[in-house]
């Protein structure tokens, strides 16, 4: 039967054409990435300041910039990166199965995740903690006054567990409404379903921008948990993990050394040995990682140092208006500290 044969032929060709099978040895992510020609980066489905697409599909944010820096370090071109939006539920399977090379998805580094889920966390690009947002007219000024409150949050996050622990520890009652997606949780909070919306502090500031009247909501000062957010890779690929860790440290080290994307071009003649090592003028750090010698130079030149990335995406001059806080350099009393590049 001609028609049937046609149908099957068409189907088969459609499926084959549709499914660019990327077969490769996932054991060595760097080789796969090199061969493919770009970094596949798993990000959130839209969180202003961290990873957020505009109407045209251009991604911006701290996590997005991190992936761009990795691409710049490997290929010398920050544009050689593609973003895969992932839900909280999909993120670990996506990295486990090799669908993405990194997840930079405001993901909390916890022991369970690091040890039991087949992923490795290698750096912390944002020190965060969980907080609460409430309507200003509720008259609440501290999270200890939230006894009996209804909380909106997203499902499948450390947030849900922390909230449970916090309310129990303080002997308060609560009701939790946990949504599949952050947008739905925010929409429900905005419509009055909940008294408070709880998630990481940074995300509270980000989500507040999406509310009908951002000024009518306040973020409570208490931080009830430790949420070190950082990029994660597949467990067992140390070469790739090292690249991820050191790209982050290079951006921090650049800030420590006063190297920015603007002045890095003129730093070539610097006699400061630390800067020379950072720029790849000295030592074999790039070769040791298996990437070009100017890896850190390209990352900082094309994306910026940690301070620049922070200020551009979430800093006080952005709509989010977040102070450096814990994310200041250790020299300024913060927690961002790069092991020496030497």
């Amino acid at each position, binding site marked *: 039967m001609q028609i049937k044969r046609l149908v099957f032929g068409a189907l088969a060709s459609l499926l084959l054409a549709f499914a660019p099978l990327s077969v490769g040895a996932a054991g060595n992510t760097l080789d796969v990435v090199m061969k493919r020609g770009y970094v596949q980066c798993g990000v959130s489905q839209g969180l202003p300041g961290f990873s957020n697409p505009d109407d045209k599909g251009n991604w911006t944010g701290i996590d997005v910039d991190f992936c761009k820096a990795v691409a710049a370090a490997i290929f010398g071109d920050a544009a050689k990166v593609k973003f895969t939006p992932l839900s*909280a*539920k999909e993120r*670990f*399977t996506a990295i*486990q*199965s090799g669908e993405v090379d990194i997840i930079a998805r405001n993901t909390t580094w916890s022991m369970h*995740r690091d*040890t*039991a*889920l*087949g*992923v490795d966390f290698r750096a912390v690009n944002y020190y965060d903690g969980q907080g609460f947002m409430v309507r200003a007219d*509720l008259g609440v000024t501290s999270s200890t006054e*939230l*006894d*009996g*409150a*209804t909380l909106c949050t997203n*499902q*499948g*996050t450390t947030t*849900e*567990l922390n*909230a*449970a*622990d916090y309310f*129990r520890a303080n002997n308060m009652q*609560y*009701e*939790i*409404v*946990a*949504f*599949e997606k952050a947008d*739905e*949780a925010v*929409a*429900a909070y*905005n*419509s*009055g*379903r909940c*008294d408070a919306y709880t998630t990481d502090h940074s995300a509270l500031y980000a989500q507040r921008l999406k509310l009908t009247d951002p000024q009518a909501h306040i973020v409570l000062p208490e931080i009830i948990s430790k949420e070190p957010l950082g990029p994660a890779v*597949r*467990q*067992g690929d140390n070469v790739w993990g090292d690249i991820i860790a050191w790209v982050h440290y290079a951006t921090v080290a650049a800030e420590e050394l006063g190297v920015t994307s603007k002045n890095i071009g003129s730093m070539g003649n610097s006699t400061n040995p630390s800067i020379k090592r950072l720029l790849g003028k000295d030592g074999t750090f790039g070769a040791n990682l298996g990437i070009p010698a100017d890896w850190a130079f390209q990352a900082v030149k094309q994306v910026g140092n940690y301070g620049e990335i922070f200020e551009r995406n979430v800093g006080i001059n952005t709509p989010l208006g977040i102070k450096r806080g814990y994310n200041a350099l250790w020299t300024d009393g913060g927690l961002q500290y790069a092991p020496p590049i030497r």
Partner: protein
Amino acid sequence: MLLQALVLGALVLAMVWLVANVQSNLERQNINSGFGFLSERAGFGINQTLIDYSEDSSFARVLTVGLLNTLLVSVLGIILATILGFALGVARLSSNWLVNKTAMVYVEIFRNVPLLLQIMFWYFGVLRNLPSPRQAVSLGDAVFLSNRGIVVPALEMTAAAWWYGAALAASGAIYVWLRRRARLSRLADGSLISIWRPFAMIALASLAFAAMMGGVPFSFDIPALKGFNFRGGITVIPEFVALLLALSLYTAAFIAEIVRAGIQSVSKGQREAASALGLPDNTALRLVVIPQALRVIIPPLTSQYLNLTKNSSLAVAIAYPDIVSVFAGTTLTQVGQAVEIIFITMMIYLTLSLLTSFAMNRYNARIALVGQKS
């Protein structure tokens, strides 16, 4: 034979290949496997639980809570959809033009819009127009409607309730006995004994006795606004209301069409013959038309019930804590064992489906025409 062997061989090979893949993937990446996680502490809260549940409960308990929530919304949805669907189906056959067309417009609108959209419409579209708890619409200061849901007084049984329970049980036993006696006497000499009068008297007497001994069998726990929300009473959460509403309204549109087709399938001669025998209209409907229509209605109705149960899994979009939401959702992300959890979830739905089909097939076999293969 050769073809079969080939098919079987291919299947076995495919299975082995898949299982080997999963195993090597999981092992290589050091991912936990097995069902041990079910006894671990869940650690998160759930806002609608039909059985006792706290953060200290295990993941197995989470599974049970989710399953019960799924069953609750499915069973209530099936009841509501059946009532509304039968009403609409009869309305579609009404000789009254306006009633007929109104039912038609309803059916055409509700069955042609995706259910997920309807659920979200009721939840996100309608919820935001409800007042906050402090401005709640109240009915006699006992029932409150706000964007936290509907809060109704809870009925709490007191110790006296035992007396009433005993009274009801006694009346039930007496009813069975009376019926048996009436049947025996009918079979023996054809005399008909009315059992309703003695039964009603005995039932009233036993209830009166219980009232004398125990007093009022229940007390009300009236909800009151305290702090952020209502305390006391029973809260029907908005997620539940939106899901139930959407499921019932959507499925009713399909049931209406099934009922219409069923009634239309009964030939006009049957009704005419019934009326020629002198049966009044409603008796003819009850004894002649409906039993025959049911034969046509039951099989597709079964699939609608199954669809409704499966569709209740869309709860995940609006945070109603059904099995997909709390187990295939929250538990999956906390534990990270996708294979085991999705497998358990699918098996549960499969079991529910098979049980429902089995029950409905039994019923169908009972009402099917004798001698006709069903």
